[in-house]
């Protein structure tokens, strides 16, 4: 089992916001959004909203959810489960770990 890819320092991600990690780094089909909740837990979901084209990394992260910046679809940070229309498909979650203030991503692994 790998130790994951070191993709950011925790401080790179403002609380309640996200940053996108390029798919060239993650080796995945889509960029991956690192999303830091209001309780400072970091989650990772495929970056593109399943409804349209917006980046979830530019969304609003709070209380266990991310809200798409474009049309307000909501996804559960932990599971990627869609919680609010207009999106109807779940977002794909990835395992992420924070160790010593560094964020490690495990692309394709379930959280």
């Amino acid at each position: 089992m790998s130790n994951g890819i070191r993709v950011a320092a925790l401080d790179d991600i403002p609380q309640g916001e996200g940053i996108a990690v390029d798919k060239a780094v993650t080796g995945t089909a889509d960029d991956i959004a690192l999303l830091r909740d209001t309780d400072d837990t970091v989650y990772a979901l495929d970056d593109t909203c399943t409804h349209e084209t917006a980046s979830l990394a530019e969304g609003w992260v709070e209380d266990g959810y991310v809200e798409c910046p474009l049309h307000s679809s909501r996804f559960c940070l932990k599971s990627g489960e869609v919680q609010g229309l207009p999106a109807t498909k779940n977002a794909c979650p990835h395992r992420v770990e924070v160790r010593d203030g560094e964020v490690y991503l495990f692309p394709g692994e379930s959280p």
Partner: protein
Amino acid sequence: MTERVVIVGGGIAGVSTAASLRAQGFGGEVILVDAGEFPYDRPPLSKDFLTGSKDIKQIALQPAQWYDDQHVRLINRTTVTALRPRDGAVELTGGQLLPADRVVLATGGGAARPPIPGLADPRVHVLRTADDADRLRLSLTPGARVLVVGAGLIGAEVASTAVRLGCEVVLVDPVGVPLAAALGLELAAWLHALHDRHRVTTVRATVESFTNRPEGIEAVVDGVAGVHDAVVLGVGMVPSTELAEAAGLEVDRGILVDERQVTSNPAVLAVGDPARLRGVPRTEHWEAAQQDGARAAATILGTPAPVPTAPWFWTDRHGRHIEAVGHMEAAAHTVIRGSFDDPTFSVFGLQDGLVVAAASVDDPSAVRAARRLIDRRIPVVADRLADPAVNLRGLLRG
């Protein structure tokens, strides 16, 4: 205990009720009765669906598999003809009774038809359903002369779509600046002026009559006759309250509900366009209907209702995306962030140092921020709000 919920109508309010029931853990039966093939989203009807760039499957509110996955039984192509609260059932087309412990009325509404002579002409269209849009699309051919009556959200969107399809469009409304109450006078005026810049002729007037002529449908607008190939009425909607009235529920410009969406009969709830909370006007927006559904589900489950948020709506016209949140009419003054000539800009309505409303052009993120500023009652400094260099997310942190 509620074991079987029957939802009447598959618009955003009905489908949201079903989805919320499951999301909140309801384990009983959920049955959705809808007149169409499957529930679809209505905002695209005046935009991508009307141009033909999206078909009916692409605007489905949920994929077909969702109903199986969520154990929601969809009874399609069927209408509820009567509520039978005393029998604990609803009656379907053909007389079949469907037992129900709780009924949720999500019956939507029909297009308003003002008493204008000659209105029954087949060239006079309304736009509430996919069938309406399918019919209208056939008329929106390049060079077609189209008269749109009503310059609110739907009329303006149809005018924008029609001109994009190459039609010659005249847009008539008696109001000088439509949507001024919702968006503030400055932004509403800018938005209405966008029509002229995109070859839509705007006329401030009322339509007096329609007459069928060999060369088209003649409309008399403030005494002046003009001939058109098609007319579209976008003058508001009438809530569908017939079922509720026939069942003896209290109805007054909408099915009267309390803050938990319960009608005057505790077994019957109402959500979306036809529901009216006692003492306040009806709301007709997409998200309000969605929130009604979530609230109805909470009522059925006996769980706390979701916290209401500032009302939000959006509209698209002439390639610009406009969003608004809150109550602009409650603002004492407005602050403009950016300039009306910029690709994106926003207007914030303030009262006593608090944001009470916002409207943005091509900047949905500003409205997302504004909604949080409103809901959390975060004090703001007007100058900082007006400065496009100031990060709005930063203002949320106080």
